[in-house]
């Protein structure tokens, strides 16, 4: 009986037969990366393999000098006894599901994914497999998303209303993925758009990859006579209660996250407005994705793994919790964001 195609080790998810790890949480010899969020893409491994469209943002995370090999979506690569291919996960630019095949047996590791539309990345592609390793960040039926067009319309209305009231709109969101999705969705004609340094860096990488977004300007050092009224400013959540954030006063603050679906999370944030916008699958999305794989066995990682697993078991699937160290509980880091390499806090 050979080892399973993917096993859980101290270093992370190991594909022994292929000689590589998937999103390891310690430096390893060879790492296949699903996407560039901090809990999935750790620096200091020897060799990286990742989907070509995401190489620019991955370099921001693991360093420009890292040895990274790109693989086009759908292209097959033989590693050891295993045939590996990457397929769009719809999470952020370059995010991929990892398909592993050995002797007719197919596994897919989802990484993070969503099924909803997103103009900044290739849409999620269902991949048939025997065993599917899925995330479960929003694995409860209370989490359901409205179409992004409605959310963008809400953000536009909010921004417009704040502008009319002579205030700046400070919208907090994760610097990688969420911010660019918003920049591709809002209406440029409403007013000028400014970016926090951390957001700007990633946005430049997105622009270099050809993603169309509204024009933006980096927020420079504070100057006397700065006038932010009517502007939309995107910044990471940590910027809110800092001198950097206060300079935009009078301002109205907003936060874009799937967690904003629940009132308690909204109130705890103490922002003026919550927008329910997530780059993770909602409950119907998780069920649809799992069903589309045709998998008879599902391993559930980070998030609400226990309820999703039990629900799948009651549907008759062989489901188990897989205790990875990907972040998924708690609202701070669960959408996979941490400082980008070289970022100065609050700059």
């Amino acid at each position, binding site marked *: 009986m050979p080892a399973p195609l993917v096993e859980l080790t101290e270093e992370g998810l190991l594909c022994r037969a292929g000689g590589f790890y998937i999103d390891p949480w310690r430096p390893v010899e060879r790492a296949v990366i699903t996407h560039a969020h901090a809990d999935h893409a750790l620096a200091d491994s020897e060799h990286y393999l990742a989907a070509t469209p995401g190489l620019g943002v991955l370099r921001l995370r693991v360093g420009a000098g890292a040895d990274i090999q790109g693989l086009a979506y759908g292209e097959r690569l033989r590693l050891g006894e295993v045939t590996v291919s990457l397929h769009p996960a719809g999470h952020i630019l370059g995010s991929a599901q990892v398909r592993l095949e050995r002797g007719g047996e197919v596994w897919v590791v989802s990484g993070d994914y969503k099924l909803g539309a997103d103009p900044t990345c290739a849409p999620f592609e269902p991949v048939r497999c025997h065993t599917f390793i899925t995330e479960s960040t929003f694995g*409860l*039926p*209370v989490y*359901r998303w409205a179409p992004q067009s409605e959310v963008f319309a809400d953000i536009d209305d909010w921004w417009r209303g704040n502008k009319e009231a002579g205030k700046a709109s400070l919208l907090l969101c994760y610097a990688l993925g969420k911010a660019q999705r918003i920049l591709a969705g809002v209406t440029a004609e409403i007013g000028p758009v400014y970016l926090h340094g951390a957001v700007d860096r990633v946005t430049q990488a997105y622009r270099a990859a050809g993603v169309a977004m509204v024009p933006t300007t980096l927020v420079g050092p504070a100057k006397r006579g700065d006038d932010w009224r009517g502007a939309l400013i995107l910044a990471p959540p940590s910027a809110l209660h800092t001198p950097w954030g206060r300079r935009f006063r009078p301002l109205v603050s907003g936060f874009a996250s799937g967690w904003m*679906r*629940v*009132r*308690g*999370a*909204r*109130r*705890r944030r*103490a922002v*003026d*407005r919550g927008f329910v916008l997530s780059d993770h699958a909602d409950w119907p999305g998780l069920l649809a994705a799992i069903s589309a794989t045709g998998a008879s066995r599902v391993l559930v990682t980070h998030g*609400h793994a*226990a*309820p999703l697993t*039990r*629900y799948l078991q*009651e549907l008759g699937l062989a489901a188990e919790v897989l205790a990875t160290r990907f972040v998924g*509980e*708690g609202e*701070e880091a669960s959408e996979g964001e941490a400082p980008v390499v070289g970022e100065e806090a609050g700059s």
Partner: protein
Amino acid sequence: MRRFAGLYAALDETNKTGDKVAAMRAYFAAAPAEDAAWAIYFLTGRKPRQVISSKNLRAWAVAAAQVPEWMFEQSYEAVGDIAETVALLLPEAPATATRPDALPLHRWVETRLLALPRLPEAAQRELMLAAWEELGPTERLVWNKLITGAFRVGVSQTLVIRALSEVGGVPVATVAHRLMGTWTPDAAMFRGLMAAEAGEAAVSRPYPFMLAHPLEDPPESLGAPETWQAEWKWDGIRAQVVRRGGEVFVWSRGEELIGERFPEIAVAARQLPEGTVLDGEVLPWRNGEVLPFAELQRRIGRKTLTRKILEEVPAMFLGFDVLEHAGKDLREQPLHVRRGVLESVVAALGSSTITTSHVVELASWGAAAELREQSRSRGVEGFMLKRRDSRYGLGRVRGDWWKWKIDPYVVDAVLIYAQGGQGRRASLFTDYTFAVWRGEELVPFCKAYSGLTDEEIRQVDAFVRTHTREQFGPVRVVDPELVFEIGFEGIARSTRHKSGVAVRFPRMLRWRKDKPAADADAIGRLLALLPGGAAVEGSESPSGPSPAGR
């Protein structure tokens, strides 16, 4: 209903008082009178009795949402609120724009909500399922909260009154006066509320309260002690008793009328001469002794007062100032003159329910400091110091009134259990149990919820998640590693607590990241703080009673 749900969302969305008042103003200006009356009813915390049990609500929601029952519980754990969990689990409502807002708020309440308790269960179920189908997401949440009697939104009666006053151009005191007592929420009530001022408010209106500053410098900085009037500082509800126009009004500092909560004070105040306003403190008082403030809270918390609670927690009004006498405003008079008037007015009353504060003679600041050490045994918080020749100023005038409070007790204790919070704190571990050492063992002695910043809460939450030893239902037993400085106001023996003591108002003063758990305090330190001080069972604490910061 949609307009009211919109108001709820707007109030819920902001922490800014100005925005809340603006949202209510917009609502009251636009809503039909019969709806506005119900909105006032709910916003001011009045509610019909719970019409549907949460058990039935759950069962019907589970059916409508087509999720297993255990999944409902899991969802509830993440959301922290039954009404919201139900609203989030129900199948998607059709977009607001495509639904007619068929039924105004007063019809929802009068023909459905109030009808529900009289219906057989099957009909209740049908009504609820139909209601959910008809309503949008926020409306569902509001409806669920109304029928479970859990409707609460972060506005005080004062804010509601302010908004109504601004919309109707009616003075605040008039609106407050008109909202007193019992009224029927209907169109006539709302129109009456908004009617032009007819002079009735002047009768009830209190004076703005004069407030004290905490004394941070040594008392010697205040100059000669004989220029100051000292009184014990009691922990009660600051209030003004207004006796005018043949009526009595008891106002709290939050400008709420609280006479109905304290009928014994209102009755006693009827004997005051016409045209009198007293300033003082409402205290829970039995057999000549003050009761813990928590006892008073039992009375504030309820709408209807039972005979039992009136007997268990009698209240009295301790007057310390007089602002109006024989219809004349005395506030420009110096304190020592007002004090004379106060004493004669209250003495003439001969009541044990309305009395005057005791003026403490100060021989010297040194003697005062010594006397202040008796505060705890007297059940007070320290001294109030008021300049004898001061007028009664507006608000927090600096320099004339000082509160010279004693510091809280402190111990360093170890976090041993954690539990998830509710509402705003759902899905975070925010409710903690703390323990002190008894030999090698940690004995729990209090729970505390407050005192940490949001950032610290997140850090402790992360610690709990990664250091759970055992789990009992919602309670996590964690590795005993984190030490917090716990402050509290009082301590008494208790047979109900494993530690043998119960403390008042425990809260976290700071996180002692510098201290390992082994260096936390031992039980002996707590026992030594007990009134009477007698340290028993092998006290490990060499120090006597020692409030912080001495």
